[in-house]
């Protein structure tokens, strides 16, 4: 094991899309169930104007982490970065598809920092989150 070879990574390479159906029970596990929560109390979420409870934005960053660990392995666990902007809320019952493409490779000390541009799209075709994630390659 070790860092992935930077030479094996091409700019523009698209990572395999990752499909994530999000069930209420998963949101419950992630956020912890409590009353008067827009994440886990359906009635409260409706009162606040949402059709269903919202998945925490952090859940989507975990999907980015998964994509990057699968792509760069150790180079993401130690040295990884995520910068995400949230655009639309994600609701219980939504299915997200996470996309990523290699944007750049830049020298960083003895390593190469590989930056991936990512975007997350719901089944409604809306972008819910965009940003960049990066990690180290040899």
């Amino acid at each position: 094991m070790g860092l992935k070879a930077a030479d094996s990574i091409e700019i523009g390479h698209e990572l395999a899309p990752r499909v994530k159906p999000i069930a209420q029970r998963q949101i419950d596990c992630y956020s912890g169930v409590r009353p008067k929560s827009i994440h886990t109390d359906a009635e409260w979420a409706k009162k606040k104007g949402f059709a269903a409870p919202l998945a925490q934005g952090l859940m989507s960053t975990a999907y980015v982490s998964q994509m990057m660990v699968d792509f760069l392995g150790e180079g993401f666990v130690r040295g990884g970065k995520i910068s995400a902007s949230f655009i639309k809320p994600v609701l219980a019952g939504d299915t997200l598809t996470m996309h990523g493409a290699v944007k750049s490779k830049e020298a960083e000390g003895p390593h190469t920092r590989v930056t991936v541009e990512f975007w997350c799209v719901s089944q409604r075709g809306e972008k819910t989150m965009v940003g960049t994630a990066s990690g180290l390659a040899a």
Partner: protein
Amino acid sequence: MVEFKTISYDVVQVGEEFRSDDFLIKPEDVETFAYAVDDHHPWYFDESPYGGPIAHPVLLGNQALMMRHSRYIIPAGLHAKIQFEFLEPIRAGMRVRSYGKVIDKFEKRGRYYMVTEFATKDEESGAVLVRGQFTQNIFKGETHGA
């Protein structure tokens, strides 16, 4: 005693510091997180390149996010931006704590935001495991209910 106030743009002060409770990472926490985000990578349950299992890099995000709750009642506020930097692998058995500081607050297009930087540390070694920044939407003045 902590006197909890409802958080708002008017109440939050730039420079204000937060400190989470400490948290012992248990194997069941790693398993629950794996279920919640449907990520069962073998490094989180078996051997990893670091010797023994590690945890998901984002596992402790909620601890950092919830720092504000140690002082404020938080009405529903949505995230605008999140930044993470993963410095060291996280492992079950670590006792961890997050430290944060409000570094900015601003109004943009009629909405109000606070920016908090944070570092999550292994309490035993003092090593910073994760650091980053949250930009969160908050209400302007006094409000009630989440």
